[in-house]
C-alpha cells in the first residue's frame, strides 16, 4: 500500500447515467445532503455508454479513482444498458486489479433517482477507499510544467 497521507484529497471521476444516478446526485444536492466534494461528475446517457477505455483514460489523466454509476438492474431507461455495463466493468475491474491497480480505485454502483442518501454513502465509501490506497502513481501521463 502506498503511504497514507492524511492531507491527501483524491480526484474521483464519476460517470453517471442521465436517468438515475445523475438525478440521484441532483437529489442529494437539492436535499442539502453533505458529501465529500472530491467527485467530478461526467454525465452520460446510460452506464452502457461507458467504454472501458474511459476508465483507463481517466486514470491516465490523473484521476485517483473512477466511479461508474447507473440505474438498478431492470430499471434502465434503455431496458438493458446497465446489464452490458456490468459485464464490461466486471472484466475491466478484474483486469486492472491484475495489473496492480487497487480495486478500491475502480468502483461501480447502482443509484436510482430517489436515492440521494445512498449517493452520499456511495461517495463516502469511494472516497475513503481511494484515500486508503493513496494517490494513483502508476501510469499517469507525464505532466509538463510550463
Amino acid at each position, binding site marked *: *500500500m502506498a503511504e497514507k497521507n492524511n492531507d491527501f484529497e483524491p480526484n474521483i471521476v464519476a460517470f453517471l447515467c442521465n436517468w438515475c444516478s445523475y438525478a440521484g446526485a441532483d437529489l442529494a444536492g437539492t436535499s442539502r445532503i453533505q458529501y465529500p466534494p472530491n467527485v467530478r461528475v461526467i454525465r452520460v446517457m446510460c452506464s452502457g455508454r461507458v467504454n*472501458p*477505455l474511459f476508465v*483507463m*483514460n481517466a486514470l*491516465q489523466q490523473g484521476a485517483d479513482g473512477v466511479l461508474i454509476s447507473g440505474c438498478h*438492474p*431492470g430499471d434502465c431507461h434503455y431496458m*438493458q444498458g446497465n*446489464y*452490458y455495463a*456490468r*459485464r*464490461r466493468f*466486471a*472484466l*475491466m*475491474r*478484474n*483486469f*486492472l*486489479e*491484475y*495489473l*496492480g*491497480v*487497487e*480495486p478500491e480505485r475502480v*468502483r*461501480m*454502483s*447502482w443509484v436510482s433517482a430517489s436515492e440521494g442518501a445512498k449517493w452520499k454513502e*456511495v461517495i463516502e*465509501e*469511494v472516497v475513503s477507499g481511494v484515500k486508503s*490506497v493513496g494517490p494513483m502513481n*502508476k*501510469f*499517469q*501521463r*507525464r505532466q509538463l510544467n510550463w
Partner: protein
Amino acid sequence: MVDVERLREIAREVISRDDVRQLIGYRQGTYGFRARPAFITSPEEVDQLIFSPACVNNLATYLTLEEKLPVPRGQEPDLRKVAVMVKGCDSRALVQQMEEKAYERERIVVLGIPCTGVVDMDKVEKRFPDVLSRGEITLEGDKFVLSFDGQREEVPKEELLADKCKRCRYPTPLVYDQLLDEAVERFADDDYSDVLELEKRSAEEKWAYWEEKFSRCIRCYSCRNVCPMCYCEDCVLDRLNPQWMRRSVDISENTAYHIARAYHLAGRCIQCGECQRVCPVEIPLMELNRKFYKDVEELYDYEPGTDAEAPPLLATFKVDDREDFIL
C-alpha cells in the same frame, strides 16, 4: 502425424476446384527449422506444402488480413472460396471470426489438421543456435527429431513443446470440411497456474512486474497485426480523434496500449499464442489474455471460439450475472 503425400493430394483436389481461389498452407522456410505460410493458387504449386511441428503460424489471420481492393467498374468481385489449413487452435480462430460474422462459413474451405503440438521456435533456437541450412523437425512418439546438416538429434517432446500446446484443450479442429488425419485425443488441460500465481501477489508487486514488461514495449504493433481476432478496419490505435493512446513510447501510453489491446480481446482471444510468439521484446502477452480467458470462463461460463452460433460475450448478458462488486 499428417502424411504429407495425403495432404498434398487433398490440397491438389481442393485447389483444382473451380470455386476455390487460393489455398493457404505451410511450406519450408528459407533457413533453419522454420516453416512459413504458403499461398497456393494453382495445382502445380501444391508440392511445396508441408506440415510438421515447425508449422507454428496461425493461418486464420490471413483470411481477414487480405486487402480487399475496390472492384473496378464493370468487373465482378472474385467471390471464390479461400481454403485454409488449420490446427486445433487455429480452427477456434475461424469459429470466433464466424461467431462475430466476419465472413460466412460458405466462403471458406477448411482443411483440418489434428495437431499433436508444435514446437516453440525460441526454445529450438536456444538449443540449436546458428542452424542456417534447412532443417526439419518431426515428431516420433514422445520425441521431437531434428535433422540438419546430416545430423539427427532427438529431444523429449516436453522440452521443445510450445507453452500453448501444454494447455491445449482442442487439438482436433472444431470446424473443418476435410480432416487430414485421424482425430487426436486431448492430451493436456489448462489449470491457469501462471495467472493464479500472479494474482496472488500484492498490488505493488503486480505493478512492478508489469511496469518492467510494458516499459520494454517498442509499440511495433506486431501483436495486433498477427492476431487473428484483430481485424477491425478502423482500429482504436489508429484513431486520431479521439486519440485514446498517444504514439509516444513511455510507460503511460504503453500501459494504455496493452490495456486496450487485451481488453479488445476479452471473451474473444482463442489462445493461439501468436502475439507472444511475434513479440520482439518478449512481453508475456498471453498472461494478459489468459486473465480475461480465465475470468470469462469463471464468471460467464463462456469459452471463446468453441461455438459459432453463440452470441459474442460482451454483446449479450444474463440478468443474474454476478454483481457482488457493485456498491
